[in-house]
């Protein structure tokens, strides 16, 4: 049996090895920091330039008015109201359908070829380019069902088709993450399946479902292409009174104004972007608030 020589911890070989390890550590930290600074830098650049350009565009008239040919009189309220109405239609359709689908697929559906196919289809649907949904909306809701053109109703339905798969996927994950022991507990004292779902599983899955829903809604809020297809790009000089009236939405308004030749619209475009970003921030804030409010620990 050969005797093992004691390790020379202070020898040059060991020292070099240790130095190399520390260097790797430093390199990784700098790389990570650089990545964060790069993305944060772009965001800061966007905010600063947009802010500097757009801040002068704000006025009472801008916040209460609608689109106009004269940039001085052009306002954002019409588009903002259009966005609100559209999102209302979207959430009213996508949330119940999405949540019910998620619960059904997770809790009730048998595992077989059909449900596998449905699962794959839903995942694919979430990745379909939005312009396709716009074409679908144009073909089905306008040309076939003759719903009003340029209206938040049709925009909302089209965006709901896009948002629903996002809610289904988030909802399924949230339902899946409810511990099985809670289901056992409720079943064990004689709760029926539907009582287990509505008394225990859904309340515990709600924070996750709401987070997914708001992410989907934020995406719908920023969506432009499908709405162009269904005619929400018209020049609308009065705010919509309901979901059947012609309207436009914030991102489409930004798109329209950015295309204007008149110099005054540069300022208005930036101001509209600020309104859209504030709206988005408010929605994300709401998501965080709801998640904290409903989150239960065990």
């Amino acid at each position, binding site marked *: 049996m050969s005797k093992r020589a004691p390790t020379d911890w202070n020898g040059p070989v060991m020292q070099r090895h240790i130095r190399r390890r520390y260097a790797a550590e430093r390199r990784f930290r700098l790389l990570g920091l650089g990545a964060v600074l790069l993305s944060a830098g772009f965001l800061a650049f966007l905010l600063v330039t947009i802010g500097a350009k757009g801040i002068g565009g704000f006025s009472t008239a801008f916040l209460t008015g609608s689109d106009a040919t004269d940039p001085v009189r052009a306002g954002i309220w019409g588009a903002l109201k259009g966005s609100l109405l559209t999102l209302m239609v979207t959430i009213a359709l996508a949330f119940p359908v999405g949540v019910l689908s998620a619960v059904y697929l997770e809790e009730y559906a*048998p*595992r077989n070829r059909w449900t596998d196919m449905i699962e794959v289809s839903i995942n694919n649907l979430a990745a379909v380019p939005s312009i396709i949904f716009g074409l679908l909306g144009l073909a089905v809701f306008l040309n076939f069902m003759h719903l009003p053109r340029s209206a938040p109703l049709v925009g909302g339905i089209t965006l709901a088709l896009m948002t629903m798969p996002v809610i289904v996927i988030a909802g399924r994950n949230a339902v899946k993450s409810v*511990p099985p*022991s*809670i*289901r*056992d*507990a*409720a*079943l*064990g*004292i*004689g*709760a*029926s399946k539907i*009582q287990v779902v509505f*008394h*225990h599983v859904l309340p*515990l899955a709600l924070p996750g479902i709401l987070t997914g829903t708001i992410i989907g809604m934020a995406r719908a809020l920023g969506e432009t292409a499908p709405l162009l297809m269904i005619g929400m790009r018209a020049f609308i000089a009065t705010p919509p009174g309901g979901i059947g009236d012609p309207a436009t939405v914030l991102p489409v308004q930004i798109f329209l104004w950015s295309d204007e030749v008149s110099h005054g619209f540069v300022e208005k475009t930036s101001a509209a972007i600020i309104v859209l970003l504030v709206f988005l921030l408010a929605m994300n804030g709401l998501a965080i608030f709801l998640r904290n409010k409903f989150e*239960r*620990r*065990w």
Partner: protein
Amino acid sequence: MHSSTQTAAAATKMTARNVSVWYGAKQAVRDVSIDVSTEHVTAFIGPSGCGKSTFLRAFNRMNDTIPNARVEGRIALDGEDVYASGMDVVQLRARVGMVFQKPNPFPKSIYENVAYGPRIHGLAAAKADMDAIVERSLKRAGLWEEVKDRLAESGTALSGGQQQRLCIARAIAVDPEVILMDEPASALDPIATAKIEGLIHELRGRYAIVIVTHNMQQAARVSQRTAFFHLGELVEYGETEVIFTNPKVPRTKDYITGRYG
């Protein structure tokens, strides 16, 4: 001797006859017949994977929730086949309560945990009735003194042993006839375990209690009847004292004396 067998027969609550359980093509329980009575605490012992928990879950049809689990044979509650097509599973589980291995209180208040069962079964007409049920159940579970001033606090904030007693209170709140306990103390420390065992003693006679355990000392302490399972078969079933001191089957003796398991 004659009279004691008669009372035992009168107190018989559940009977299993030639019960087999399959998970897909794998047979987990083989042709087991057993009687469970209110008079005795029945313990199921055996090495891990011997089918004792699976068999226990057949009594209140909890295996129904597992896809492609299949039960054959007959299990009856008061002579009524629990797998008959007319049997209401929801009602069955109210009559045959269950306590699980890991304490699983709902993330709700202590009061709500106990009140949930009576509420869904419509057992309390007024708030005062419900208060009485909650108090009685927590008292029977030996938890009332510890929690009576903080019923609104979350059940999940209790210690592990208290959570398990809360789960027992939740099970007895719907006034079941049978309580199935699936290794109820295996996740608890020795002091909490002793409390659960004392509780089982007190509940005996009021409810038919079946306890699955792989702690043989625990089976010897709390039960009057013991069933030894191995590889899905019921190897030996009889009075706990006999099983532990003078088992008839060599396999039982080998397990009891720690030769395998």
